[in-house]
């Protein structure tokens, strides 16, 4: 502890949660979270409303005591430390700006509490960073939502915390402002180089901003990885449905030969790479993203080695400029979504008989015992 300052701010380091659990009565809001968030990274905690994101952040900031588990900042165990003794700051979901203080005093609040007398320069610099220097003497109630959001950010950032927690900071903004603030936040994070833990229920927001995403569901981490990783190789049906859209086809593993897994689904043989398949026997759910699937007129020659499902009929085609979105009904009654890039190819009319096919290396295989619909409705809800 000798090298630490008054806040116990160590020489830096990762934020590590070990078996972190929070129970409210018999209800488990956060369930054995094990996470390591590297120093300086932009980390997103993605999950539907009520899955325990805010509770997790509150435990990290010290505003909620965990029922079990430990929290480490670098090598320091901060689990028992009071919130005002932790080098962690939060941008709250509703901003929580002090209504009785003006913008300047709101931003200076943290510095003053730590006994720093000369705050003028720092506050001015911070207000410049969020481009609101001209509003220093306004009250929070006289600011727009976007401005309040940036003041909340400035108020937290000025303390140069080891970790900055952002609880759905853009949730209250309209779509256009949200996109703008996403870019802004990313710029600021790059500029200040602090660890950002960004909580959101918006998968697009998480994908565009974060280096690493942890997908949370009912208090647990479903999967963690880079945005591309999660999108290309989801580990559960929840992640496959919650992050973007997926075609999920139930089938059975026929066998594994070398690094190729063979699956039968709807009486047709499909293959996928063994390292993208999470089960090697029994029931499997084979998934493929809509933009990886191609359409071919029935009976036409297909490239060799593709996964193909024949006998489909186009049930819906919507042309949206950059692409055409199809729904193809398979003989089994199942509907597949297909996004075809507008590269000049012919648009298939509803009623046309087609073969859907895709590159086997673009499929992923999931454990067949899961709920195939998990996470699908949540995504629509949060997108609305």
């Amino acid at each position, binding site marked *: 502890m000798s090298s630490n300052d008054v806040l116990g701010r160590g020489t830096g380091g990762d934020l590590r949660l070990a078996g972190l659990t929070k129970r409210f009565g018999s209800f488990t809001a956060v369930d054995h979270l094990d996470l390591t968030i590297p120093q300086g990274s932009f980390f997103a905690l993605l999950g539907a409303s009520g899955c325990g994101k805010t509770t997790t952040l*509150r435990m990290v900031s010290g505003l909620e005591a965990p029922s079990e588990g430990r929290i480490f900042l670098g090598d320091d165990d901060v689990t028992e430390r009071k919130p005002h003794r932790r080098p962690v700051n939060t941008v709250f979901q*509703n901003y929580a700006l002090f*209504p009785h203080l003006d913008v300047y005093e709101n931003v200076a609040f943290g510095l003053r509490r730590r006994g720093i007398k000369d705050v003028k320069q720092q506050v001015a610099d911070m207000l410049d960073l969020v481009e609101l220097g001209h509003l220093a003497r306004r009250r929070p109630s006289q600011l727009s939502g976007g401005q309040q959001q940036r003041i909340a950010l400035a108020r937290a950032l000025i303390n140069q915390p080891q970790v900055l927690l952002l609880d759905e900071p853009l949730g209250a903004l309209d779509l256009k402002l949200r996109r703008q603030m996403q870019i802004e936040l990313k710029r600021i994070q790059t500029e200040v180089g602090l660890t950002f833990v960004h909580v959101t229920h918006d998968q697009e927001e998480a994908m565009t901003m974060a280096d690493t995403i942890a997908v949370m569901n009912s208090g647990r981490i479903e999967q963690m990885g880079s945005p591309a990783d999660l999108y290309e190789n989801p580990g559960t049906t929840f992640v496959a449905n919650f992050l973007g859209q997926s075609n999920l086809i139930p089938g059975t593993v026929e066998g594994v030969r070398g690094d190729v897994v063979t699956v039968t689904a709807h009486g047709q043989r499909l293959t996928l790479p063994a390292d993208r398949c999470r089960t090697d026997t029994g029931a499997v759910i084979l998934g493929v993203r809509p933009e990886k699937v191609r359409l071919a007129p029935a009976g036409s020659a297909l490239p060799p080695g593709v996964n193909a499902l024949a006998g489909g009929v186009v049930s819906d085609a919507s042309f949206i400029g950059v692409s055409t979105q199809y729904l193809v009904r398979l003989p089994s009654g199942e509907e597949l979504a297909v996004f075809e890039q507008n590269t000049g190819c012919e648009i298939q009319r509803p009623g046309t008989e087609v073969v859907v096919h895709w590159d086997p290396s673009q499929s992923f295989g999931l454990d067949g015992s899961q709920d195939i619909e998990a996470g699908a409705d949540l995504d629509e809800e949060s997108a609305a």
Partner: protein
Amino acid sequence: MTTTTAPPAASTPSGAADPGRPYRRSPLTWIREHLLAAITVVVFVFMLAPNAVILWMSFNQPIGKFDYDWNRFSLSAWKNPCATNEMCHSLGLSVEIGLIATLVSTALGTMIAFAMVRHRFKARSGINSLLFLPMAAPEVVMGATLTALFFNTIGPGSLGFWTITIAHIVFCLSYVVVTVKSRLAGMDPTLERAAQDLYATPLQTFMKVTLPLVAPGIGAAALLAFALSVDDYIITAFTAGNMETFPMYIWGSVQRAYPAQIDVIGSLMLICTMAIIALSQILGRARNARR
């Protein structure tokens, strides 16, 4: 100053007055538009008339002992507000009791309000209803009960200053708790979390965030407590022993004499109250203008 030219009549929405022709509206519309204003004026007159009469009668030179009929204008009551020794003594007593009762009930009541809003404990809803009891109970009953209590605990000879004060604290407390509680309940709890998150110790959080935000509620509660205490008659009469507070003096004097000085004191109280309200508004406006 630039003058704006009226837009051509064709572009004005239908129903708007055309400056060229006199515009006729039905009398019903006129009544509808002025009804609210009329009722407001009537209500204000109704509420303020007694105060106006007090102010007016304080400048009277009464014939005889009762300042009930207008005789002629005089400043004598204002020049000599203590008509009798007892009157100013009773007023002093009322103010003294009022200040102590206000101080104690505001401090206690604020703490109770915090406990009720911030903490979840077993007896919470029970205590909540108990707090309403002094407000709901008829004052005569409260007064009689308190007398019985004091008789049986500290004895009949002890009725006086402290028993009045205790009784006043008892009934003011409920009003303070209710007033502060509503202010606290309307306060966003994340503000205090934000303060802690920004390195404020629990004490700093309370002094820098909680207290400034709840202060208007506490102030209102204190004013209410003082007003309730200073003007209470029924409970005071039960617990006063041979002490005489200002309301008791007035009540008694109605039988013996009613000097114009009572109206002077009444007017002074009114003026003080209005001055406090005006001052707080001027201060508030000045603070807003400073930004």
